[in-house]
């Protein structure tokens, strides 16, 4: 493999990896606030892309994307309010099954609404064949958009959780919900907010990557597994580690495609997930016990 080709694969991997990282952080936000692994996480990415494509028929691209993010956030909040908010002490098994049910319903609704064709937003700058030279590799500007948007989201989320009042409240809620509510924090609303935030991030990621990867009603499950892999690789709750893990997984996958048939692409990243779960369930960077239900 020549150096240029190597670089090309790395860049392709980073593009996908950035998306996985965002989905992984989405898992982390909801897990932090509720202890729930939201199996419908991938559906947010799909919804973002789909809604943006639909809105784009009447609105310019930036507005369509903004609209898609807002609508998906509303969907995320709605899921939480209808399915999760009013349950006291749901078991892990119950939450797993409920969020799986939710992912199926969202997916089937998307199938009814948009059919089973692939859809895509137009390229933000240039078109399919525009490319920029980076080193010896040719890169579509959309790749820059995707990686840039994901990096910006990660940065903003970090700032939000570290330095804003609301972010600190959400962290307090994640650390100890009873204590947070005793301090007067509206913990239930913070949980709803965590779903909305997580959904919005997924939706934006779904929009920026849509021109490259296309969006279809059924892309959610695969993304959810990848995002979960990334969240686990980084150790649940550790968002910066999730970014590293996401990029690593993306690059590994890109090289896999160059060696194995494309049908095995998912199998390889799942094998990574299983390996991690079996060998080091606390993640590469984490310390927490994964056996906690």
């Amino acid at each position, binding site marked *: 493999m020549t150096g240029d080709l190597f670089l090309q694969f790395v860049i392709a991997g980073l593009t996908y990896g950035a998306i996985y990282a965002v989905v992984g952080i989405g898992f982390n936000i909801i897990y932090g606030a509720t202890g729930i692994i939201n199996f419908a996480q991938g559906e947010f990415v799909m919804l973002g892309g789909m809604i943006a494509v639909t809105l784009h028929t009447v609105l310019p691209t930036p507005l369509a994307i903004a609209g898609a993010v807002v609508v998906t956030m509303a969907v995320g909040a709605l899921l939480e309010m209808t399915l999760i908010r009013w349950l006291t002490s749901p078991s892990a098994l*119950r939450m797993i099954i409920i969020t799986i*049910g939710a992912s199926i319903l969202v997916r089937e*609704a998307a199938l009814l609404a948009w059919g089973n064709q692939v859809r895509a937003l137009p390229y933000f700058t240039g078109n399919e064949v525009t490319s920029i030279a980076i080193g010896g590799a040719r890169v579509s500007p959309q790749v820059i958009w995707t990686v840039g948007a994901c990096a910006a989201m990660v940065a903003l989320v970090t700032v939000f959780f570290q330095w804003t009042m609301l972010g600190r409240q959400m962290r307090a809620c994640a650390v100890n*919900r009873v204590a947070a509510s005793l301090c007067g924090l509206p913990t239930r609303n913070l949980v709803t907010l965590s779903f909305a935030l997580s959904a919005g991030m997924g939706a934006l990621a779904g929009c920026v990557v849509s021109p490259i990867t296309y969006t279809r009603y059924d892309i959610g499950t695969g993304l959810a*597994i990848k995002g979960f892999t990334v969240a686990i690789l980084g150790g649940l709750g550790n968002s910066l580690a999730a970014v590293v893990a996401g990029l690593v997984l993306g690059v590994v996958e890109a090289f896999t495609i160059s060696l194995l048939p494309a049908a095995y692409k998912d199998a390889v990243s799942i094998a990574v997930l299983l390996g991690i779960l079996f060998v080091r369930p606390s993640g590469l960077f984490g310390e927490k016990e994964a056996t906690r239900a």
Partner: protein
Amino acid sequence: MRPRLPTAASRYLKVGIFLLLAAAVERAAVLAGAGFLLTQLTMSAYYTLVALGLSLLMGYAGQISLGHAGFFAIGGYTSAALTTWDLSAHKGEALVALLSRAGVLATRPGIYGGDVLLVHPWVAFLCAVALAGVVAFAVGIPVLKLRGHYLAMATLGVGTILSSIAVGSEALGAADGISGVPPFELVPGVLRVAGNAPVRIANYYVAFGLVALAVLLLQNLVQSRVGRALRAIHGAEDAARAMGVDVARYKLGTFVVSAVLAAVAGSLLTHFNAGIGPSEVSIMKSVRYVAIVAVGGMGSLWGALAASLGLNFLSLRGYFGSLDDAVFGAILIVVMLFAPAGILSLDVRGAAAAIARRVRPARAEERAPEDREGDGGVPVLRGEAGEEGGR
């Protein structure tokens, strides 16, 4: 909810009643001139075997599996691949000759004239079941160490890998699956598993007989020492371990038993349908089995049986139309929200009272928002085992 322990006599009685009901349904369908319904009922019965095994795993061992369609498919695909693989070109080779002498192979007339040499369905069936057992054993050792979300995701991962193997392998027919699977001569000349009309009634009884047998065996299992150990694990794993229950061994054993049941169903249904495709191994199929067990009530074998026969029959008859998957998704949500112990557990008056209780404090909340988290409504922390202890 603690399952009531039926006596041995009532267990056999229930299975007897079930078989009588099955016979009554068959007679009614045939007399009403709707014998074609038996085909879907037979298929439902095979899917029910999977649901029964999963009910044992989820309800008694407390382990979720989002990859059970994979074991069904291991059974089905192994049988299909072995019984459609024409070995006549290799007739001269020593291994094939040896297998042939050992009675492993069977000849049958091929569709293009001339005889084809195939693995005997019984041998293929035993291979299929053994393979599923071995895979479940190998996968189960690491997977069952996990709990909660991790277990769910790991089994989902295993299911996805099996699914992509089925779709990605040319040898397994890729997206088309394997068709032209020959009938399975259970008793040569007397009884065979096949989907054509003349043997419809016999096949109906084969399938329902197997379901009855499975219920009987599983019921005896859960009433035995093994069952008590499983219930102890489900109730409080650490306590069970402290009492000397070999938790890992029991979980693994249950996993293998449920996988073997799924493979039996997969193999026989593949012969019945004369083929198998990758939709049988999809994640959605695995989720369906979970939905069925959830509807029936985890830990209720009869509940799983009733839910499986009912829902599969409706689905196979096409009552849900293009909303098929959505129906199962909705079922999952509704059951888990309102009746996590299964719909048979629904206590309507109790539920109404619970809703009333829930509405009243909510009104109080509007008046005094400052202490709304102060009463019993404090959400339980993450990581706590819930009321079903489903970890």
